[in-house]
């Protein structure tokens, strides 16, 4: 079942509890790496550790096939510089774009619905330039391309979602790990706010549940959490270098919940401290308990 089919089926049948089993089906039968493994790669070069992490989780060919239209979703939400750690590290994004191109992807699209002014976010984050150089297709959000799809969650029943992510063959989520005033931390699951149309600010009224609903509907083929620099305060946009901590780490995997649960430990927290991680675990979206997953550590 491909992504398009999945979303169609989810729409027709209603996702409900059948989601976890549906999710399993995206993992190819021949996979030798367990679904609940994550790779934690550490090292000085962001692009090197990104490539190594993808390799260790099964190699890019496991996720991207020749001719695929791939969507890469970094966080480009803020008018901040890379060293301020408010947006995904441009080198990490570029490395993933390059991997996908090398794997024979037909097109690699990169976008985000920004919070600050879009032109500044794309430029100042360094992501627009990096993606262009790597051969990806980075474009601004086109407001005509949101399509209302059924979410059928507990908080979100339906929502306009950017059609390019619905229509993509493969989706790769590349969030950055940051502090957040309400969610406490924003990582993989919260990154999906960047594909929501409409007045997405309203979801803060039931943020944890909304993020779980959203993450159930948009399933990434692969998630790479950027923790080259993490933002420990005044998130999610920071600004002061005092709040930035250099970790030189990326975490790759398929299980968004496991990744966010591991990400919490970078801030001295646990997965269960985060409401959306708890809810996602309960809903069967992934595994919060780090003792139940295989953590492959790489140091370069």
């Amino acid at each position, binding site marked *: 079942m491909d992504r398009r089919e999945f979303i169609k089926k989810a729409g027709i049948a209603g996702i409900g509890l059948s989601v976890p089993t549906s999710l399993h089906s995206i993992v190819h039968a021949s996979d030798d790496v367990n679904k609940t493994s994550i790779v934690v790669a550490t090292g000085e070069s962001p692009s090197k550790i990104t490539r190594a992490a993808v390799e260790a989780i099964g190699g890019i060919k496991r996720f991207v096939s020749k001719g695929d239209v791939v969507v890469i979703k970094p966080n480009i939400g803020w*008018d*901040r510089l890379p060293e301020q750690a408010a947006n995904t590290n441009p080198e990490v994004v570029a490395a993933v774009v390059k991997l996908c191109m090398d794997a024979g992807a037909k097109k690699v699209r990169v976008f985000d619905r920004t*919070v*600050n*002014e*879009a*032109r*500044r*976010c*794309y*430029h*100042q984050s360094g992501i*627009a330039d990096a993606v262009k150089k790597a051969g990806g297709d980075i474009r*601004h959000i086109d407001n*005509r391309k949101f399509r209302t799809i059924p979410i059928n969650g507990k908080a979100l029943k339906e929502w306009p979602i950017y059609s390019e992510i619905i229509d993509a063959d493969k989706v790769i989520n590349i969030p950055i790990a940051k502090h*957040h*005033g*309400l969610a406490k931390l924003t990582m993989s699951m919260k990154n999906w706010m960047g594909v929501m149309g409409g*007045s997405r*600010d*309203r979801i*803060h*009224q*039931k*943020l944890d549940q909304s993020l779980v609903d959203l993450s159930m509907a948009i399933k990434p083929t692969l998630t790479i959490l950027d923790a080259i620099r993490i933002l420990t*305060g*005044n998130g*999610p*946009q*920071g*600004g*002061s270098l005092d*709040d930035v901590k250099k970790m030189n780490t990326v975490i790759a995997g398929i299980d968004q919940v496991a990744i966010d649960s591991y990400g919490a430990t970078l801030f001295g927290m646990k997965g269960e401290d985060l409401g959306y991680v708890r809810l996602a675990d309960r809903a069967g979206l992934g595994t919060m308990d780090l003792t139940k997953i295989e953590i492959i550590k790489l140091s370069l």
Partner: protein
Amino acid sequence: MRNLRRTSQGVFLLGFIFLFLQTESKGADDLGYPVKLFLDFDPLILISSFLSSHSVQKAFYLSLIVIIMTVLLGRVFCGWICPLGTLNNIMSSISKKSRRHVSLKWSKSKYYILIFFIISSLFSLQITGIMDPVSLLIRSFSLSIYPLFNYATRAMFDTIYNTGPSSLVDVSESVYSGLKQTVLSFKQPYFYQSVFTGLIFISILGLNFYERRFWCRNLCPLGALLGLLSRYAILTRSVSEGCNECGACAEVCQGHASPDVKNEWKKAECMYCWNCDDICPNNAVILGVGKNSSSYSTGSNTNAGINLGRRGLVTSIMSGVVIVPLIRSTPFLNAGASAPDLIRPPGALPEKEFLKRCIKCGECMKVCITNGLQPTLMEAGLEGIWSPVLVPRLGYCEYRCTLCGQVCPTGAIQTLSIEKKIDVKIGLAMIDKGRCLPYAHATPCIVCEEVCPTSKKAVWLQKAAVKNRRGDEIIVQQPRVDLKLCIGCGICEAKCPVKNRPAIYVTSTGESRSLDNRLLLNQ
């Protein structure tokens, strides 16, 4: 000669449009082009700003080039360079009727207008920009014509996108994407008073159907200034013995220069379009440097155009004097009485100084990356009409953007570095607890805190236990504003989920440019 002139007009008009289109951010901290160049070359703005504010931006010395050029060559700026003049020229060409000359008397009006502006700026009132052609053109394009063009183009492509067959959509979308990268703005601009400023501009163009280049001949204060400067120009016109006063040249004259009456050629009204020379059936027109010895018309009265008459002169001077106290007897200039919504862009001088410099050209509004800078109508008094005001509900002040100060031609908005800009308070945010979700409705929301750009954040959250209707206790985080840290950028107001009358909003109180309007004791 006509083709040469048209080429020059075309080049300058295209250059003007190019710079206008470049007055838009691509995400970097600067624009990469000297977008206000045409204003820098405008001697009327140089003189009036010098008189009103006793200060001159360095770039304005470029306008000395136009002054020298006019002193030597006459009003070639009007005929060969001015982009508004070229537009008027084009409109006149479309209209047959415009060939008539309504009345020579009208052409004096522009001198009265010029005197009125010069005298009022002598008494520190800067309203010249309302009628200065370059300022008027940029303002009209920014606030009205360009938004109109964008709207129409977008509507057309959106209609095809939404309803057309897919083969057509593929073609139209690739054209659309090409236009987006060249002539369309990043997003549709919207401005208050786009209709008002647009109608004024369209009327100016429409007047060409009444009389050829009506604006240039009769109203333009810059044209009047250049007319005065052209008095001793060495590029002059004369006619040889072959002239039989057939009147063919009067038909094509772009100005009110009376080329058909011997000895009556009015240098100050001549825009050096060369039409008379081109059309003359007897080839009797001589346009050249110095008094042509072979000229039939020795002692030609080249100053015939400027004979203003005592009554008109006194009236325009008196109007220029009286307008100042008239326009200033308004409570708007007192801090306590100023409109709370009068949030000036960061770097704006204290209000009185600001108004002495702002020429209402609209550059800052055109460049404002969020479209938040809007033209005032009466919020700053009549004196401040069309000056920039930030309307956070439409667009906040982007924290790290400094473009409005960069494009301001007169220094009304100072150019600030990013480091300095983020310390400038343009106002302060305050919370309307009656509308705020965590305060009034026991509903979680932290959007204002999330988007607050200062570090540390000016909007902070205080945990509070509130009861909902069922009596359940809910812990919410209620936003508070740290007035010391808040810079009034308004992103909280812009992003507040309570639309149309947000639960957090900025007013100008606390703005650092004004000593009277500050709020905190130790600011």
